[in-house]
């Protein structure tokens, strides 16, 4: 029951805005790099950077607060049969960044001829969309406003979480002349409210381009109502199989796991995927289940780290059957496929699950008796190749009887096979998709997220 503020469908693209210092420096670096390369060498240059505000809360107090200004560029140098990469700091100051780049290239050159032959080198080429520029605008809190604005409305609550916001930029350039620039302000607030018991907690998420305190207050009120439901006595549910509703946040946990479980061509070909049986047609999922990349309203750049621009949509699983693997240029060369502009790790960037026919109002009545799970925690493949996933219930999870919430549950471990619970076990999906923002901040703030409905599943299997 997470709620979000979102304005992804009508982003303010301010592409006529004059280039920032970051953008100017990146373009100058891309223009200067060929002077340091040998005649037969090519390059690609990817950039990721941010100016971020991070404020961490515990018990409606500030635990840590600070700012980070960081950027990293990844420079690949290649010939027809060899490739090497250099990752360097990007400060946005050409006088700092260029000497560092020159020095790194000069260190690389002596090694280059002695690197092993790489049969799957892909050289940069021109494409249908060689350039793009997307510069978004928004309104975020000032760094010194964050504590007051966020904590004033919740000072009587046990509120914990992280506000992360600021400018992010991504860019790409190569020796074939491709140039892409993406720049956006964004924020995420990922928080929890806690009750008197250790396990009494409800989660909320707020994300977008424009901060609005009133919408934040409304979001907290929704989460607070959920917390009140958790004050009822806890029911211990024995291990077994139960009809289960997975709210969109819980579905996102499943999809996140699937997204690094081998939807890419390389993983399928190398025995590292849960989806070989789906791909080769041995098994199917329910016709109600469709998964696709959908860049229409996700707030991330469409260009990948090879400078290719993805289609706005790419079906991965369509009505329960395999449609497309994610294919990078390198896999395309190795396995004789066509690239569909996947990034080099062939992970999903803009997952979207198709909605179903279950209205929000019918969720409890259709669940009837079973478990309502708002969130899942610490998912992992228990058997990757077989498609089995394990994990825990977390936050607001309830035992439901005859369409009525009866009691919060003691957390349960599940372990079930996706070919079962997304196959015959999938009863329906909700009509409404929700946006689940990516709140990860490993290395840098993530952008985007996924769109997913909730799911009603027959006999979801609980083991501990």
């Amino acid at each position, binding site marked *: 029951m997470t709620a979000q503020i979102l304005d992804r469908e009508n982003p303010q693209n301010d592409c006529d805005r004059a280039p920032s210092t970051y953008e100017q420096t990146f373009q100058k670096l891309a223009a200067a790099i060929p002077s340091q390369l040998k005649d037969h060498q090519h390059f690609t240059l990817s950039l990721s950077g941010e100016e971020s505000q991070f404020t961490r809360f515990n018990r409606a107090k500030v635990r840590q607060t600070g700012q980070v200004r960081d950027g990293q560029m990844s420079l690949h140098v290649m010939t027809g049969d060899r490739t090497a990469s250099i990752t360097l*700091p990007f*400060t946005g100051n050409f006088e700092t960044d260029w000497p560092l780049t020159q020095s790194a290239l000069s260190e690389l050159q002596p090694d280059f001829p002695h690197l092993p032959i790489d049969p799957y080198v892909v050289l940069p080429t021109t494409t249908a969309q060689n350039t793009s520029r997307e510069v978004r605008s928004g309104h975020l809190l000032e760094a010194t406003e964050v504590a007051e604005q966020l904590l004033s409305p919740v000072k009587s609550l046990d509120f914990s979480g992280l506000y992360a916001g600021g400018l992010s930029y991504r860019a790409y350039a190569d020796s074939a002349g491709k140039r892409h620039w993406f720049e956006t302000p964004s924020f995420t607030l990922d928080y929890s409210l806690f009750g008197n018991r250790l396990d009494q907690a409800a989660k909320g998420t707020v994300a977008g381009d424009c901060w609005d305190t009133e919408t934040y207050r409304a979001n907290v009120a929704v989460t607070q109502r959920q917390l009140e439901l958790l004050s009822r006595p806890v029911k211990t549910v024995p291990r077994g199989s139960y009809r289960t509703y997975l709210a969109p946040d819980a579905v996102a946990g499943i999809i996140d796991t699937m997204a690094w479980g081998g939807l890419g061509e390389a993983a399928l070909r190398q025995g590292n995927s849960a989806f070989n049986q789906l791909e080769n047609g041995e098994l199917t999922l329910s016709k109600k289940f469709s998964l696709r990349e959908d860049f229409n309203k996700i707030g991330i750049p469409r260009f990948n780290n090879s400078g290719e621009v993805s289609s706005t949509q790419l079906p991965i699983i369509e009505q329960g059957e395999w449609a497309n693997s994610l294919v990078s240029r390198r896999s395309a060369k190795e396995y004789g496929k066509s690239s569909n502009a996947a990034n080099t790790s062939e992970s999903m960037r803009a997952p979207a699950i198709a909605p179903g026919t279950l209205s929000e109002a019918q969720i409890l009545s259709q669940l009837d008796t079973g478990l309502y799970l708002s969130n899942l925690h610490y998912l992992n493949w228990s058997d990757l190749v077989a498609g089995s996933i394990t994990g825990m219930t977390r936050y607001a999870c309830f035992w439901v009887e005859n369409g009525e919430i009866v009691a919060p549950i003691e957390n349960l471990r599940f372990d079930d096979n996706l070919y079962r619970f997304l196959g015959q076990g999938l009863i329906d999906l909700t009509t409404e998709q929700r946006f689940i923002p990516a709140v990860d901040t490993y290395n840098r703030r993530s952008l985007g997220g996924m769109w997913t409905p909730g799911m009603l599943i027959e006999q979801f299997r609980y083991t501990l």
Partner: protein
Amino acid sequence: MIGHLTAILEQIDISADWIGIRATQTTSTTRSMRDGNPQQNGRALNRGAMVEVLADGQFGYSATNQITPEALRIAAQQAYDQAIAASQWAVHPFTAAVRPTVVGSYTSPLDQPFDSLTAAEINDLLRQLCERLKVSADIVRTSAIARTHDIESWLVSSNGSQVHQKLNLIEGHLGAIAQAAGVTQARTDNGHMAHSYQGGWERFKTADLWERATRTGEQAVELLSAPDCPNDTTTLVLAPDQMMLQLHESVGHPLELDRILGDERNYAGGSFVRPQDFGQLAYGSPLMNVTFDATHPGEIASYDYDDTGTPAQREYLIRQGILQRGLGGLESQRRLNSPGVACARACNWNRPAIDRMANINLESGETSFENMISSIENGVYMESNRSWSIDDQRRKFQFGCEYARKIENGKLTTPLKNPNYRATTPQFWHSLSQVGDASTMAVYGTPYCGKGEPNQLVRVGHASPVCTFDNIEVFGGAGA
């Protein structure tokens, strides 16, 4: 660099109670091969500095990848402004006492420097390892990875700290995937990137390297025809490469004081351990002795000072089964009024220090491997983690391994595929019935311990002997 940072610090003119600058520079190389073909030949440079300011009892920080006087002066002002703006909401009124004055240095052990092998030689070594891993046509994927890191950090502060630490880290991985007749099995060299150490090439090019590569390939093939691990409640013997994960998830994380204080509740989770448990709780059987040991030579998370400058010492976390102290730096110790260790660590210059594991080790016991196995009538022996999941209070866990063998009448017998076990943390550690002697001890590490908001990945080390646990629920691929 210490002089450079000290000079900058002296020029910062703000009325803070304490100011510190922590700078790091990391130079890394990653070279990897798949099926004998290069996947990556990369170098990386990462550097920057965090200015931390204490004002009105609240810390604020600002981090930048420009280590110039002007950039750090601006950062100091931003950190100060953050601290002042948040001070009325401070979770605890800190003083400079949580940033002790220290002067010192640490250099990790290093016999064979990273530049003692050329890029061509490293690639050739990895290619040969891929060949060694491919023991039969059933091997469909081989991989060999070597990563090196030179990490230097410098800490200076307004109360006179000057710390320089230089770490040389090497991380190695070997893996093979076998396929035949619709069965796929993966085997790695003690788990993904488990051979992560401080040191140079001497920690990668060990005497047993080629034997390990051959065994990894052979066991991947062996698993193709192995039966699934049975569904049973039985005696479980865990090798050190799985004990690493077991210690990490069910001892290390629950003992982190910031989890107990609630800082992590919104992300990684809390802990079933209560503040009053320290000094009293019987965490496991009397055979259980766990130490925090950042002084272990060669273990990957060794250091002399944590990232707030607190000097590191070896400490017992659990002694004879009784919980002694938690994993928390000086800030958490003050907030909780409970003993901790020097473990306030940051993954890089761009993240603040939080309570982390460093090296968490299970001390050896007195039972030889042979005596341990011969004492078991029926059981399962498991090696190398492949799946891990535990609840947010660190109670209910389920872990899967790559490789197992049946134990029958005191002997290791049939290989088993898809071995898993599940239990709850207190029940599991109270069932510890045998701890291997020093000859069964092994040291591993992982570069991938994730935690914190904003998120941080740090390296942690774990050493453990082989251990036996009684009456544990084990199961195979179908997942009973």
